[in-house]
């Protein structure tokens, strides 16, 4: 049994930090120590930022993005072409595509993919919201930027079916996105190339 060198408060801080993706127990320890040493310049403003985030962050009721405003900054942006919607599985994918900066358009976050084995069905995803947005009019193109996994492609197929008969063009990312490759892991060049060379579904 290792001996405790800190009180329960610091232990708790370390445990919570260790739950952040990319931080293991070791780096969580290092981060905690760093925060404690930089109490005024770092720990205090971080604590404030976390408190504000907790109070204000929510999910955009239109597109499913996370932001402190609803509609979110992306939906409210008049500079964007709001007639094109890129459909993604996760907010992380939205951020990845924004980083690539290939298209200045709107998004729709599904919140996952259809997966019978995980008990995720159409009603568990934000698909109805997408159909509503298209039905409301003014949308000319839907870009399905789902992953090239079985679940991702099944979901793309399903959405295409739900949008059938509506006056909207449906495209998907060009092949060249590696099979099973998750968008979030792709570099910006690959992402923007895949968007530019999108094909009809």
């Amino acid at each position: 049994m290792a001996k405790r060198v800190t009180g329960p408060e610091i232990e708790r801080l370390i445990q919570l930090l260790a739950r952040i993706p990319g931080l293991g127990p070791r780096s969580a320890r290092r981060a905690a120590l760093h925060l404690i040493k930089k109490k005024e310049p770092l720990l205090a403003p971080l604590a404030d930022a976390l408190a504000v985030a907790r109070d204000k962050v929510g999910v955009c009721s239109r597109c499913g993005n996370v932001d402190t405003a609803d509609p979110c900054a992306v939906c409210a942006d008049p500079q964007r072409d709001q007639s094109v919607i890129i459909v993604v599985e996760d907010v992380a994918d939205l951020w990845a595509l924004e980083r690539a900066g290939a298209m200045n358009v709107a998004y729709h976050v599904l919140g996952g993919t259809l997966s019978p084995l995980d008990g995720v069905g159409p009603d568990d995803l934000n698909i109805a919201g997408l159909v509503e947005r298209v039905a409301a009019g003014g949308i000319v193109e839907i870009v399905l930027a789902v992953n090239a996994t079985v679940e991702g492609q099944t979901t793309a197929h399903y959405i295409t079916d739900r949008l059938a008969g509506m006056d909207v063009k449906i495209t998907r990312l060009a092949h060249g996105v590696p099979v099973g490759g998750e968008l979030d892991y792709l570099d910006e060049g690959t992402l923007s190339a895949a968007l530019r060379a999108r094909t009809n579904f």
Partner: protein
Amino acid sequence: MPDKVAIGRLSLTDFRNYSELTLRFAGKHVVFTGNNGAGKTNLLEAISLLSPGRGMRRITYSEAAREGSTGGFTLFAEVEGMAGPATIGTTAGDEAEGGQRRVRINGAAARTNEALLDHVRITWLTPAMDGLFTGPAGDRRRFLDRMVLAVDPGHGRRVADYEKAMRGRNRLLSEGRFDRAWLEGIEAQLAELAVAIAVARQDFVRLLTILLERAPGEAASRFPKAAIKLTGFMDDQQALAASDMETRFAASLAESRWRDEAAGRMLEGPHRQDLEVVHAEKSMPAAQSSTGEQKALLVGLVLAHARLVGDLTGAAPILLLDEIAAHLDPSRRATLFSIIDDLGGQAFMTGTDAALFSALEGRAQFLSVNAGTVTETVFDG
């Protein structure tokens, strides 16, 4: 002549009956001898885990971690690989890893375990495969898919995706969720994967057939020629273009939802395919051939496959031959050894009796295994 791929060093930590062991190989063939239960097969199994998948015993990883050890097992190897010298590390069996096997190549985490195929291709023959021709079709399919994987690294992923999609469809049907659009989405994926799998298997069978027919005279005289054929899926539609096969299969899946729901499984697809093997000369199905003939047919298949991998990749695969000498008479044994030599790859063999391998003296390194310790023996047979 293909470049030689060989393992130079192998280290085992908490693997089966070994707590800590490092072996150095001289680049030649390796013969492990020792009593029953000494740990010979375990060493071959460790090497088999340098290729993707669950190794030659198809284990759940936790059972391979040494009894009484706390975590999982770790294997490490230095290889003269297809892409030059490389180090391969793999670890699994630790409860905390959740049944996954992690692979490191040249010190960096591999993105997928298939990356191992960039460095070594490994083929094996074990006594457990003796019943291959008489056993269930699933065993032959797995045998076939492993062989395909060694020449087509995308095949493993294809098969895994297909099986997952199929389980998803089964689940929807069994829950009575006849959601047309959702099922169609899954079936479109299934059709694409099914045809890709069938085509990859068919291409492979065609290539292997060419090599089986070209078997060198000496081998042909000692090991009966096998004729192989795929059956059980789209047998009469091989002439169709892949996209037509996909359309047909997707339509057939849509029609058979109720039937599959009633059966509790998918009744049609490449998961129902079988590899039919026939003793060519006698036109006799392998399943009805004698025990010795079956073994010889199997050896012939495995060796032809090894030659195919060598031809296609430029490097002969590493061969793991467990108890290989046991059922062969001396002249067949000698032929086998010379075929293995001609292949140009490194072979690892086991047997209880070193004398069975006397013909390999000078061409192989002899290691004697005794209750988890391994010592080099100077051949005295």
